[in-house]
């Protein structure tokens, strides 16, 4: 493959890494049956706070820890209000999405355009020399390598381990998990906070690495959180598909600018927003089989055609955790 394209694709992987963290974090949270809608605000707040801490302490590690901590804290608010107080998760998450954003802009003002430390790539010896893959995967920074571990680890955990089975269980049917000995609400707290910490990490991943620095409202991060949420859904609550969705999203953006000079009669906005219609289309495909009118229309079709289409629709269907957003009460 052309080296330039390879390096470009490697850049896509790097650019997508924060989104990978955020969408897998959200995937874990939602698998446990909780929607944390606050991602957009969380990422901005942690980008700012992580940057501020790193600037003041000179420590990147502290910056990242701050991000994870604040992400966990915001998630804990969502968990507390939805699990303990039984308030609407969507409402609380949405409020936090807006409030944390403004908080980031307000408190981050003194750090606007201050220069600070950032993470540089660390190619992995040996691995980096593998043809194609070396350039693509192994000349990145340490966070990108972490993201590989995260993708594989999260998928293994979710689908192959005992606690992963319970995680899926509490999202599907908390009462059934409860009678099998799982402390549903405690686990929901745990996974919401854990997922929140991952979303929180995405912030410093921008401000201390991929988009080093903090520039207030022109940091260019407002919207990322919503995109990560969309990708979670697009990925059908699977870590691997969420990662794929993140790469795909950034790839389209990249394609948009690579093709800008050759496709001069296509407005540049088209490829930039393409992920959203695509997300909607994906949601449409996986859900439309459940729509009443489709069922009615199918019923009127001749047998062969009906079986063909309904088989197709069934194979596309991917349903969210059955108890997503539903609080669990055993009394």
């Amino acid at each position, binding site marked *: 493959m052309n080296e330039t394209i390879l390096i470009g694709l490697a850049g896509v992987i790097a650019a997508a890494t924060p989104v990978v963290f955020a969408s897998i974090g959200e995937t874990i949270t939602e698998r446990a049956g909780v929607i944390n*809608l606050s991602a957009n605000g969380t990422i901005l707040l942690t980008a700012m706070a992580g940057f501020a801490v790193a600037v003041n302490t000179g420590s990147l590690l502290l910056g990242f820890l701050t991000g994870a901590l604040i992400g966990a804290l915001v998630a804990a*608010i969502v968990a*507390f*209000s939805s699990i*303990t*107080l*039984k*308030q*609407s998760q*969507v*409402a*609380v998450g*949405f*409020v*936090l999405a*807006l*409030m*944390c*954003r*403004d*908080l980031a*802009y*307000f*408190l981050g*003002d003194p750090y606007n355009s201050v220069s600070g430390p950032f993470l540089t790539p660390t190619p992995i010896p040996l691995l980096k020399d593998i043809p194609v893959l070396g350039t693509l995967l192994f000349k990145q920074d340490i966070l990108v390598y972490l993201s590989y571990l995260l993708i594989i680890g999260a998928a293994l955990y979710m689908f192959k381990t005992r606690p992963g089975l319970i995680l899926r269980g509490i999202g599907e049917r908390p009462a059934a998990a409860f009678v099998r000995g799982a402390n549903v609400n405690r686990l929901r707290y745990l996974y919401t906070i854990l997922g929140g910490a991952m979303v929180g990490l995405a912030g410093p991943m921008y401000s201390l690495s991929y988009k080093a620095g903090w520039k*207030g409202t022109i940091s260019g991060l407002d*919207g990322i959180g*919503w995109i990560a*949420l*969309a990708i979670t*859904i697009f990925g059908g609550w699977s870590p691997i598909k969420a990662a794929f969705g993140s790469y795909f999203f950034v790839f389209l953006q990249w394609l948009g600018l690579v093709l800008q000079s050759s496709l001069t009669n296509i*407005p540049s*906005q*088209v490829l*930039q*927003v393409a992920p*959203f*219609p695509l*997300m*909607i289309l994906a*949601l*449409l495909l996986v*859900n*439309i089989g*459940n*729509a009443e*009118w489709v069922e009615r229309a199918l019923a009127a079709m001749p047998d062969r055609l009906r079986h063909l289409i309904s088989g197709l629709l069934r194979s596309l269907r991917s349903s969210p955790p059955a108890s997503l957003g539903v609080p669990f009460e055993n009394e």
Partner: protein
Amino acid sequence: MNKNSKSFELLFRGLAILLAVLFASLVLLLAKANPLEAFRYLIVGAFGTTGKILDVLVSWVPLALATAGLLFTFTAGLWNIGVEGQITLGAVFTTAALRLLMNSGLPPGLIIFLAILAGALGGALWASLVGVLKIYGGVNEIFGGLGLNFVSVAITIWLIFGPWKRPGTGSMSGTEPFPRELHLPVLGNSNLSVWSLVLAVLGIVLVYILLRNTYFGLRLRAVGKNSRAAFLLGVPTNRYAMLAFFLCGIFAGLAGAVQVTAVYYRLIPSISSGYGFLGLLVAMLVNFNAIWAALVAFFFAALNIGSIQLPLMMRLDSTLSGVIQGSLVLFVLLMDGVRRRITGKR
């Protein structure tokens, strides 16, 4: 005090407001600012002069319209997060109509009227798209709406920098401003257009009446609380959910139309001004009551206007208003949960 009484509920509301104020103070202290001074400037900045109060009303009109619309979708149990895009498309349609008709020779009043109608239509169509996706395609309205918000911004920017760009330039300042006769007339020396105020007040009253004691309002509530059961009881639930989106879209579109005909007099990149999201916050606070919605929206608009004084007088960022608005809603939600826990009501 009786744990189930109204005053108990009020107590918790008061507590929530107190907590929000404390939280905002804490944030201000973190920014090394004097909270009392900041609050004073917020208040003076919003109500200090008649001009300021009129400015608050300028901001109130689109916010109240968006909130009023959202009461329909909230009542129907729908999270119309796409309202931002609906405001934007309202503005786009209004601009399109004005551009189309400005040289038609029609009387300006009629042109404005038609353009506002077009705005309502634009918002309604965009909302219907979310509705169709939700109702006939199973796409959750939160994600459909979110996606369409992004698309609406892209459409706006494309129009501003592409087909509708000003001669020569193409800038964030938006499209070519419309001539003065196509502005909604303002009150005296202020920025407030009485017509848009009338529109908002009428809208609030209409929503109040519709949701209060009508068959329509009851059916909408039934759909919102239990759509399956409402269907079996004979309510055409899909039609009502679509109607909720459509009506919300009309109001959001009107908000967009007001932004074009009474505030910016053109299409700008961030034409929705965040009123949709802010409207969602307001709607969350007011429990389906349109009159309360109007009052809370006024308070939120006042925070927006008052916060302009912060950078001016204290070198603080104006986003404090958003922090206050958000924390208010957050603490009201939290305290509501605490109260229910205490009273044992689920």
